[in-house]
Structures are given as structure tokens and as C-alpha cells.
């Protein structure tokens, strides 16, 4: 069966260890977590965790059941596909000392609606937010991309 990236949204009681329980359950059962992001919700007693994992439908079903079984879980949903909006963010540091790079990077920032967060003569840091920006960011090596930090995916149901 086809492997794909699955986006899982988990609403949990904001209790100590709850993130460790989820990640431990997945690693202990041999599933990989690709990305994870967690923070409290409108109700500060609840936390929403978005995690992505690669696997086929059967694997996904097993993961959903294993997570749902944990005591502090309120709901688990599969957000894969069209019914949700998803974003992730990169903070990218460029070395733009080389002749001509400053102009090229500035033009890209303008064109792609990135954000230039800070800059000095040697380097700059750019914020890139998108649905799945890894390939795009990796392609910036020629423009002096030195390093980046990437958030986990966040996603929310459309309605």
C-alpha cells in the first residue's frame, strides 16, 4: 500500500508527560514521527498536538488507535487530505557576502512574500511559511543558504 505523509491532530488534557506518552507510544510501537508541534488552545487546560508521520493507511489506523487509547487524550483526528489547511515555517540564514547575492535574495523576498527578519553585511535571516517548503528551501543552497530551522506542521480543519 502507498506510503504517504499523514497529519494527525490530537486534543489532549494539558497534563504533565502527555507529549512524552504520545511520542513514547509511537516510538515503542515502531512508528516514526516526522514532525510534531504542540501548544495550549483557547482553553488553557487543553493542548493541541499536530504530528506528521509517514505510512500507509493500515499503519495510520494503528497509530490513531494506539493514541486514542492513552488516558489523557480527548480526540484524535486524521487531517490528511483536503479538509484542513496546513502550514509550516522555516527560519533561513543566508550568507550574502558574495557579489550580487543581496539583490537576488531581496528580489526573492519581494516576489515570494517572504519576510526579511534581520540583516547585517554578512548574513540575513528570512522567514518562509508554506504548505511544504522543504524542497524550496533546499534549493537555496546556491544563494548562500547556510542553515535553517523548521517548525512542525500546524494544521486546522476548514470547518
Amino acid at each position: 500500500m502507498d506510503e504517504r505523509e499523514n497529519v494527525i491532530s490530537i486534543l489532549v488534557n494539558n497534563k504533565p508527560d502527555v507529549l512524552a506518552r504520545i511520542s513514547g507510544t509511537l516510538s515503542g510501537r515502531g512508528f516514526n514521527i516526522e514532525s510534531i508541534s504542540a501548544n495550549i488552545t483557547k482553553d488553557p487546560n487543553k493542548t493541541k498536538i499536530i504530528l506528521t508521520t509517514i505510512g500507509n493507511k493500515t499503519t495510520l489506523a494503528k497509530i490513531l488507535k494506539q493514541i486514542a487509547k492513552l488516558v489523557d487524550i480527548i480526540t484524535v483526528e486524521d487531517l490528511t487530505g483536503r479538509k484542513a489547511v496546513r502550514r509550516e515555517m522555516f527560519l533561513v540564514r543566508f550568507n550574502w557576502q558574495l557579489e550580487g547575492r543581496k539583490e537576488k535574495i531581496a528580489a526573492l523576498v519581494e516576489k515570494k512574500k517572504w519576510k526579511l527578519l534581520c540583516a547585517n553585511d554578512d548574513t540575513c535571516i528570512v522567514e518562509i511559511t508554506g504548505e511544504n517548503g522543504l524542497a524550496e528551501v533546499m534549493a537555496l543552497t546556491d544563494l548562500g543558504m547556510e542553515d535553517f530551522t523548521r517548525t512542525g506542521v500546524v494544521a486546522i480543519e476548514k470547518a
Partner: protein
Amino acid sequence: MKISGAQILFKALAMEGVEVIFGYPGGAVIGIYDEMTRQNIRHILVRHEQGAIHAADGYARASGKVGVCLATSGPGATNTVTGIANAYLDSIPVVILTGQVPTALIGTDAFQEVDITGITRPCTKHNFLVRNVSDVGRITRDAFAIARSGRPGPVLIDLPKDIMQMELEEADVNFNGEYNCEEEPVDRSQINRAVEMIREARKPVIFSGGGVVMGGASAELRELARITGAPVTSSLMGLGAFNASSPLWMGMPGMHGTYCANMAFSHCDLIIGVGVRFDDRVTSKVDLFAPNARIIHIDIDPVSIDKIIKTSLAIVAGAKSALSAINAELAEYSPSSHVSIWQEQVLKWKREKPLSYKKSEAIKPQFVVEKLYEVSRGEAIIATEVGQNQMWGAQFYHYKKPNTFITSGGLGTMGFGLPAAIGAQVARPDAIVVDLAGDGSIQMNIQELATAVQNNIPVKIAILNNNFLGMVRQWQEIFYQKRYSHTDLLGNPDFVKIAEAYGAKGLRASKVEEVEMIIKEAFATEGVVVMEFIVDREEGVYPMVKPGSPLTDMDLGPMAPEEDSRAEIGDDPSTRSFN
């Protein structure tokens, strides 16, 4: 009025109806032990914390109640980990209370500090580190509710020393749990579908597991078999839920299962699996398991469903509620003639190749188990260790009632049997409780003899002594050309003297005719007795399905001559019909 954390703990335990705690004191729990002197609760002092958790586990299995154990921080807590994993894999409701260093010292590598909630996260159903004295009551109540609800399991509460000493106004104590642990109602449409499938089946088989035993659904299981006429097999964990003297009983299936049960799985057209998880020891090669059968899988834990075996119909429900709903729908049902033909076929398999062994001058371990069955009239509670002793205990003792076979099914923990037998005896003081042991595993928790003697817990220990780690030796014989690497235990102590040194009675049988004699003497003795049976050294457990083979591919072992073979696996001649 002020009340301390320790007092709140005991109040909550009393609300849960806890009568007995198995434990071992230490620095971090000294306050709890001090409070215990003012409380009306029985405490059984073990000799190792692993003994405490296994005893609480055995108590839970024999009584159906939640077992409780108490250990100190650090090594006390880590010593319970094997037992916690054991209870987790067999879904046994146990609450483990561990001491912890004072809250201010947590995370400093203080003396006897370990992160026990971190260590036990993957082998508990849930665990708690209590951070406020105001949480002690609520968390304790929640721990019991979580342990016993749904698919039961162990729950650990880590109790920092200072929290137990802190005081609170009594009016501010909260004993209301937060978690909703109610069972969801059974889905009627799934019940109707199951009933339809049962009506359509010509060759049905019922496969029951530990979920029926712990779910208290033995009566409903027997009723389903009576209505449908479907032959019954049980996983190791499920033994006892169905009466083994019923003509519908086929014995245990799987790797060391009966010919009859494995043939029935391989030829049936419907499996009604209830409270089972289709473990690899049962299915063997999954692709070839029950090739012609539709499978109804009833389990309280959705995770168990479709984990190993693809089911035709899944019912997520407790065994008791699902089975009684199905039984009610089947009230008017009478099985077709196809089912009678199937019953005849099953009976034929059962008679054709019953469990058997070859008699010899040496004592056969199977013979010892048969004698235990005869002398106790099948009324004993049998706890086992792990290995050959466990399989013979499953094969040659025929269980009539649930909660009478106590064995480490999932984890396979050597050293489980003796402390579990102690726990079972505490739960059932009037029963004969036997620890069926091997010479290897008895030595893994032999210190608990002192617990039994000191607390007048009159367990009977039957050691099948072949001076080998028998099951591993058997695998070395079959798969490793008899290279017996480190399985020879010829340095064993004198078990009779060991018994006597602990203040128990020690008996030994080295000839066949002594077997029954010493069993009778042991059962007639009031206190703790160790029976040592010097058995045939290289006896193996058969039938055996090699891992990766289909269930039909059974090695039946050195078959006994016809007159020697014992057909009585659940075969009561007076009721040899299917009515």
C-alpha cells in the same frame, strides 16, 4: 481537622475496598508505613519488591479485584518493573504505590531517586507523579478506576515523601476522580450482524481469552456454547472460563495446543473470538491461520482488533455485555444438522489424537500434573512459573472455573508463580493453591518462601525438577542440534532442605509410585509445602507447531502406545455426547 497525605491515601484505599497490600518498606515510604500502624489494613511483607507486584497480580487474577503493592523509591520501584510489564501484557488490574524523594529533590539524582513514571510509561496503562497533597485523594481514586475499567492494566502512583507528610484541612480533600471510565453501550447493529453470521455458520468455533476471565463473562460464554453448539477453545489466558470437562471443550490451541483445537481452527468457517488478541503463539503463521473462516472479534480494546488478524466483524465491547446481547438474540436459535456433523468431526479429532506422553520408569512431568488434577479433583488454583511447567499445567490440568489458572501469558516471566500463588492464596484462603514450578524458575523468586511461611499462607509448591532450563533445552534439541548451551542446572540446591530451612515442609518423589503419595501428604498439610519431583530429564512439550509453520503442521512428539495414551482432555466418558 488536619489530615496528612498518607492518611488521605489510606482513606482513598478504603473507599476502593482495598483489604490487603503486598509491600516492602524503605526510606521514602517510611511515613506511609508509620501511618499503616494506625490503619485497619492487612499488609503482607514480601522479601523482594518483584514478589510484591507478582503477589498483587496473582491476588487480582484469583479475586477479580484490583491488587495493590507498595515499594519504596529507587531500587524498590525498579524492582517492580518486571512485574508491572507482566501485569500490563496480561491486562491485570494492579495499583502500584511507589515512594519518591521529596519534591524539592526530584531531578537532582538524590539518594534512591529514579524517574519511575518515566521508566514505567510504556508498561503501565497510566501513571501519576503526585505533585500536590490536594491531589492524593483524586489521583488514587482515578488510578483504581483506570486500572479496572476497559481493558484492565497496571497503574502506578509515585508518592513523594514530603507530600505524604504534608497536611490539609479535611474539608479540602477531594476524593472524586476526574476520568470517565464508563463502558460505551454495545452497538446493536454489530450484534445483529454477529447473530446473522452465527446463524449462517456450519462449522463454528468459539475462541475465548483472558478478557472473558477478567471480564467476568464465563457464564455468558458457557451459555453461547450451549445455544450454538460451537466447540470451544481458549487461549492460555482464557483457560478456566469454559469448563474443561464439557464435551464441547477442545483444549488450548496454538504452538503447544491440542491437535483438535488446531485442526478445528484450520477447518472451521467461523471463529467467534472473544477477549482474545490472536497472539503469535496462537495463530502461528498468520497467512495460513483459519483459511476458511470468517472472524468475529469481540474485544474491549480497539487496538487488539485487526492488529494481527483481519476480522470480518469487529465488536468493540466488554465480553460480558457483548455475549449477553448475542445470547439474548439467539434465544430461539437451534443449530442446524451441519453443526452436528461438525461436532462429530471435532469429537473425532479429539479422540484420534489426544494429548499424550510416553510412560517410562522415570517420573513423567505430565503424570505429576495429572496426579495434581486427580488428587485435587480439579478444584485447586494452579499458578505456574514459565516454560515447560507452564505448558504442562495448561495441557494436563483441566480447569473448570475462571480465575483458577494463574500464569504469565504475555511476558512469560520466570519467577512469577510463587509470589502469584501467594497472592492467590490470600484472595482465596480456603482453596488449595499450587505453584507449578520448574527447577529454574522457582529459583528466581525462591525468597518468597519466607513470605509464605511468616504470613501463614499455605501454598503448595510442586517443582518438576529435570535439572534443566527445560523449554530452552527443548528448543536447543529441536533447532540447535542438541547443543545444550548453558541450560544444564546440575548445580541445583537440595530443594527439600531449602524448604526446611525456610520452615516449610519438604517432600521428594523420585519414583513413580511416590508421586501420588507426596501430593496427598502435601494437600493434607496445613502449612507451606515444597514437593520436589525428580522427572525425566529430557521430556518435551508436545504437540509443537514450529514458529512460522501453519497450525496443521504439528509435531505430535513421541506418540504413546494406544493403551498408554490418555484421552481425558476434558473428556468425561459419562457425558460423551454434544448435548
